[in-house]
C-alpha cells in the first residue's frame, strides 16, 4: 500500500548528492569562467553606467525637451507629446526624477540589446522550419520560467549588480522580438518574394530589401512588447542591485509604505504607457502604405 500513498521517488541521500553535485559543478564553472564573463560584459557595464550618468546629469528641462521630441517623431500626435511631458513633470515634482532616469537607462540599454540580439535570431528562425522548431521551446522556457529561478545562476556567475540585472531583464524581454521577427518574415507575401527571386535577388537582397522591410510592422510590435516586458522586470531586477524605480517599491513592501510604493508603481506605469503609445503609433505609420493592396 505504501507504493500508492508514497511516491516511489529517488532515495533521499541520492537526491541530496545529485543536487550537491549540480551546485558544485556550477560553482566550479562560475569560479572558472565568472571573471571571463565579467570581462566580456565589461563594455556593456561601461555603457550602461555612462548612459545612466548622462541621463542623471543632464538638466531636467533638456531631458523633457528630448522626450517631447522623441514622442513627436515617433507618434506625430500632440496628445501623446503632451501626455509624456506632463507625466515627466509629475514624476519630477513627486521626487522620483533620479530613479526614473536610472530606470530609463536600463530599459533603453536592455531594449537595444534585445533588438540587436533578437532580430538576427528571428531571421535565423524564419530561415527554415528546423531552426524554428529548435528555437521555439527555448523561447517558451525563457518566457515561462519564473524570473527568480534564472536569477540564481545569473547571480552565481556575475554576482549582484547592473550587468546581471540587465541580463535578467533581457532573458525575460527578448522572446517577443524574436518571435515577431520570425512571424513577420514568414508572413511576407509569396508574390513579393517570388518577384525578387525572378529578378535575381540573392539572399541578402531578399532579406534586407524585401523580407525585413515588409516584416517591419510585426518587428515593431515585437519591440513594443519587449519594452513592456522589460519595464515589468524593473522591480525584480532591483532585487539584484539595479538602481531605479524598483528600489523604492521593494523598500515599501518591506516597510509597508503605501504611498511610496504607489507613486513609484505609477511612475513605472506612466513610462510603460508612454513607450507603448509612441512605439505603437510609429508602427502604425510604418503600415500607412500597405492598406488596400488586394486588387487581384
Amino acid at each position, binding site marked *: 500500500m505504501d507504493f500508492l500513498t508514497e511516491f516511489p521517488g529517488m532515495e533521499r541521500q541520492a537526491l541530496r548528492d545529485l543536487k550537491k553535485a549540480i551546485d558544485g559543478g556550477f560553482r566550479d564553472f562560475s569560479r572558472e569562467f565568472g571573471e571571463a564573463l565579467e570581462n566580456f560584459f565589461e563594455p556593456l557595464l561601461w555603457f550602461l553606467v555612462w548612459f545612466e550618468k548622462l541621463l542623471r546629469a543632464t538638466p531636467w528641462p533638456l531631458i523633457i525637451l528630448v522626450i517631447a521630441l522623441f514622442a513627436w517623431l515617433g507618434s506625430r500626435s500632440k496628445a501623446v507629446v503632451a501626455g509624456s511631458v506632463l507625466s515627466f513633470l509629475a514624476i519630477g515634482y513627486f521626487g522620483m526624477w533620479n530613479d526614473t532616469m536610472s530606470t530609463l537607462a536600463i530599459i533603453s540599454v536592455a531594449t537595444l540589446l534585445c533588438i540587436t540580439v533578437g532580430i538576427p535570431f528571428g531571421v535565423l528562425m524564419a530561415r527554415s522550419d528546423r531552426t524554428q522548431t529548435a528555437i521555439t521551446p527555448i523561447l517558451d522556457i525563457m518566457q515561462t520560467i519564473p524570473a527568480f529561478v534564472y536569477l540564481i545562476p545569473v547571480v552565481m556567475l556575475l554576482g549582484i549588480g547592473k550587468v546581471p540585472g540587465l541580463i535578467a531583464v533581457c532573458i525575460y524581454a527578448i522572446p517577443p522580438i524574436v518571435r515577431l521577427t520570425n512571424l513577420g518574415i514568414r508572413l511576407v507575401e509569396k*508574390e513579393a518574394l517570388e518577384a525578387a527571386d*525572378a*529578378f*535575381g535577388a540573392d539572399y541578402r*537582397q531578399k532579406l534586407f530589401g524585401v523580407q525585413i522591410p515588409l516584416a*517591419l510592422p510585426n518587428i515593431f510590435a515585437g519591440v513594443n512588447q519587449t519594452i513592456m516586458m522589460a519595464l515589468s522586470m524593473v522591480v525584480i531586477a532591483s532585487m539584484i542591485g539595479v538602481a531605479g524605480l524598483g528600489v523604492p517599491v521593494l523598500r515599501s513592501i518591506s516597510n509597508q509604505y503605501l504611498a511610496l510604493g504607489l507613486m513609484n508603481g505609477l511612475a513605472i506605469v506612466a513610462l510603460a504607457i508612454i513607450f507603448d503609445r509612441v512605439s505603437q503609433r510609429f508602427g502604425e505609420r510604418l503600415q500607412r*502604405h500597405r492598406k488596400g493592396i488586394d486588387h487581384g
Partner: protein
Amino acid sequence: MDEVKIRIENLYKIFGPRAQSVLAQVQQGMSKQELLEKHNHVLGLKDINVAVTPREISVIMGLSGSGKSTLIRHVNRLIEPTSGRIVVDGQDVLTMTKEELIDFRRHKVSMVFQRFGLHVHKTVAENAAYGLAIQGTPIRQAKERSRKWLERVGLSGFEDHYPSQLSGGMQQRVGLARALATDAEILLMDEPFSALDPLIRTDMQDVLLGLQEELHKTIVFITHDLDEALRLGDRIAILRDGAVIQQGDPQEIILHPADDYIFDFIKDINRSRVIEAKSVMTPGASVDGPELPHDLVLEEALQVVSASKRKMANVVDADGTAVGSIELQQIIDAVARPAEDSDEDPTYR
C-alpha cells in the same frame, strides 16, 4: 525562322516528397488521377516539348490547374523540374550554378506576374527600378533609367506614388515597366492581364503589342482566355492536365483542333473575325478578281469577294506578291462551325 530561343525537352514535374521514385511510373503513362490516389503526388507537367521562337509572342493556354504557371516558372528555374531539359540560347538552365542562375535572371529573363508581385513598401519609381537595383546599379541611376519605361507604359507623374494608391491596371503597368527596365531579351508573363477588367485588359494588350512591335522580345505569355491568345499569339500551345495537346500556328489550331478539349475552347469564337484569308485560300493559281491581303480576316474578305464580279479574289502577301486565290464558298465553309462528332478522340466528354 528555324531558330529556337527556349527549348524545353521531355520536361516532367511531379509535386511531392518522393517525386523521383514515382517518375518512372508517370513516364510509363500513369495518369494524374492515379498518381494522386496511389502515391499522393501531384502531376504538374508531363513530357513537355516546346520550342519557343525568338522575337515572337508564344502563348501557352489552358484551363485553371492545367500547369501553365508551373511550366513558365521552369524557364527561369523558379521551380526545379523532376526530369527534363530546359535550354535557353543553347545554354542548359539546369546545369547553371547558383551564381550563373542569379546572373541569368538578372540579365536574360524578366517576369510579369498575375497578381503583380509589386513591393508595397516601395514607390512606383523604386519598383520599376528594382531589376536594375538588384543588378547593382545605384538606386538614383536605376530610377533614372527606368523612368523612360514608366513613361512608355503611361505612368509619368506617378513615380512617387505607392502601389496601393494605384488601380489594378496601373499596378500591372508598373510590373511591365519593371520587367522591361532590365532590357532582358526574354519576357515571361504569367496571366498578366487576367486580374484586370475586360476594357483595361484590352488596353494592356494594346500596350504590349505596341511595345513588341518596337522591341521584338521573346515573350512567353500565359492566358486562359482564347481571345487574348488569338489576339497576341504568334504561336499557341495548349496545355491540359500538364501535357501539351496541340501547338503551332493559331490559324491551324482553329481550323484543325486536335481533340474535343480544344474544340470546346474554340467553338464559341467568332470564326469570321479570326480566320485569315491565307488559311483558307487555294495556293498558287491567280484568278480574275480583286486583290486582298493575306492576313485579312474572313469577315473583311467576304466583303471584297462578294462584291467582286466572279465571287473570287487573289490573295497577296505583305510584299504584294500573289500567293493564292479565294472563293466565296471557301469562306463560307471556313466560317461554318465544324460538326462536333467529326473528331477522332471518343474518350473525352
